[in-house]
């Protein structure tokens, strides 16, 4: 346990000692700010629309602002995640520092989970930046906070499972660019799998659609915690980390 923290702390320091963390945060804050502004602008426009006024029911901030923005954020994640994970193992393998970790009295699992945890914490702290924008909603309106919290939980879970996959891909190569591009490709694939469900209603189509990370996020964005989604994310995290540990082991035998 302590060993895991040693690795995790080292990775976090690594992120914040280099421009990676700050660059990603700035990128995220900018894009999030834009999406947020667009969603609020549409909301304001619609809510002053006489057609909508006639409905007699006030428009819901959660439904009109928080939900679409959160859906967008889950897509931004696809771009940020490869940049977080690409260095995790690829850099250590390239510079030879993996030899230090592998000859220290700590287990592969402690190394892997420590690194993954650091990536999740960085992703989490990037997400936290967006609360500044949401605070404005609370200042001028009264959105419900519970669905927002659930949406964040969803974002974190979705991020954690993509980060686990990224960790695995980073372990497969010495080259950070390959690791990054590979992770991006897989993330993109897991995102667009969802589209199959739009036209294919057979069991096979549903299966494909089920495998998509974004389709499981929809419920979270609505503020609903469905155990199916939690199980999906949980098992993907496990799968990613499991593959990483296999890959790490094979490294020793193949050398």
């Amino acid at each position: 346990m302590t060993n895991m923290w040693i690795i995790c702390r080292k990775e976090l320091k690594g992120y914040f000692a280099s421009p990676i963390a700050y660059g990603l945060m700035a990128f995220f804050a900018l894009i999030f700010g834009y999406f947020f502004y667009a969603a609020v602008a549409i909301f304001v426009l619609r809510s002053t629309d006489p057609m909508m006024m006639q409905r007699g029911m006030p428009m819901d901030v959660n439904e009109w602002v928080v939900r679409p923005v959160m859906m967008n954020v889950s897509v931004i994640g696809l771009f940020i995640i490869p940049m977080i994970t690409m260095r995790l193992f690829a850099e250590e393998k390239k510079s030879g520092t993996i030899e230090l970790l592998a000859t220290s009295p700590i287990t592969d699992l402690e190394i892997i989970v420590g690194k993954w945890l650091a990536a999740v914490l960085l992703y989490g702290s990037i997400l936290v930046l967006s609360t500044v924008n949401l605070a404005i909603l609370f200042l001028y309106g009264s959105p419900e906070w519970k669905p927002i919290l659930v949406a964040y939980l969803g974002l974190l879970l979705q991020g954690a499972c993509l980060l686990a996959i990224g960790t695995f891909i980073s372990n497969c190569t010495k080259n950070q660019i390959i690791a990054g591009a590979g992770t991006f490709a897989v993330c993109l694939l897991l995102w667009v799998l969802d589209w199959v469900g739009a036209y294919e209603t057979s069991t096979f189509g549903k299966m494909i659609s089920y495998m998509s990370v974004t389709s499981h996020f929809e419920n979270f964005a609505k503020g609903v915690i469905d155990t199916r989604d939690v199980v999906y994310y949980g098992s993907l995290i496990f799968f990613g980390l499991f593959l990483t540990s296999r890959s790490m082991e094979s490294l020793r035998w193949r050398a």
Partner: protein
Amino acid sequence: MIKVEGLTKRYARNVAVDNISFDVEKGQIVGFLGPNGAGKTTTMRVLTCFLPPTGGKAEVAGFDVIEQPMEVKRRIGYLPETPPLYPEMDVAEYVEFVGRLKGVPKSDLARRVNEVCDRCNVGDMKHRLIGKLSKGYKQRVGLASAIIHNPDVLILDEPTAGLDPEQRKETLGLIRELAGEHTIILSTHILPEVEQTCQKVIIISRGKLVATDTMENLNSRLRGAELVAVEVEARSGSLSRETVQQRLEQLSGVSKVTYRESRQGRLAFHVESMQGKSVRPDIARSVVQADWNLTELHSAGLSLEEIFLQLTSADKTAPGGAQ
């Protein structure tokens, strides 16, 4: 302290280490000698539990590298050929990180970090970023981190590679100081380094054990052929190569004279002496008596390749040596 029996490491296509056996006793400094690609690094990687062996056994401090790797790792300090450093950390931070990894108790950590940094002469660099350090300093930081947990066994893979002569001397001095407390294996392909530092030598070539012996024994076995480089001024051609060669060959104790080259009006020869004879004074006297100008005279030593040749050919008759 270290026991290796029939160790074999096979990669997909080639055999890197082939049936090697040796022992290292506590407190010894052992030189692991061999040309590039001989299997030195692979053997060290097996000992440090980085690679599993394909066959045979390896024990460090009584623990098997396959059965109890954690126990082995706790007792080994390892410095790979390129020190495994994180350029974004500063020196103290890095050494502390390694200390944590190796399980140095928290209460001791700060003290140990200071101790090893001072010991390896990086005390005044503690707050410099590792990425900004020179190669020599990086090597010392690597060494400091390798001894942070006071390991029983220290394994150093080419600790002097890429250093300038001054740094090389310093590093070797440091390693000599560390002996006694630690059992040390250091690999190199530079013979004089081993002569200066090690008590015992293990020589491998192409994955096979060529010789394992103490330094003194090896020296006396090799003394048979002291190689001396001689250079004489040719005096714009008035002195012929044959004349010089003949005169040198006539000296007692000389077994062979080979002409090497003539450059800038000088003639260069290699003179091989017979068993246990030092011929340098005789050569000098003889050249001066003939009234030639002696421009160079030094012991050329034997290159590693020549030693291999000698050892392998000599050991064919002696049992228990080369395999």
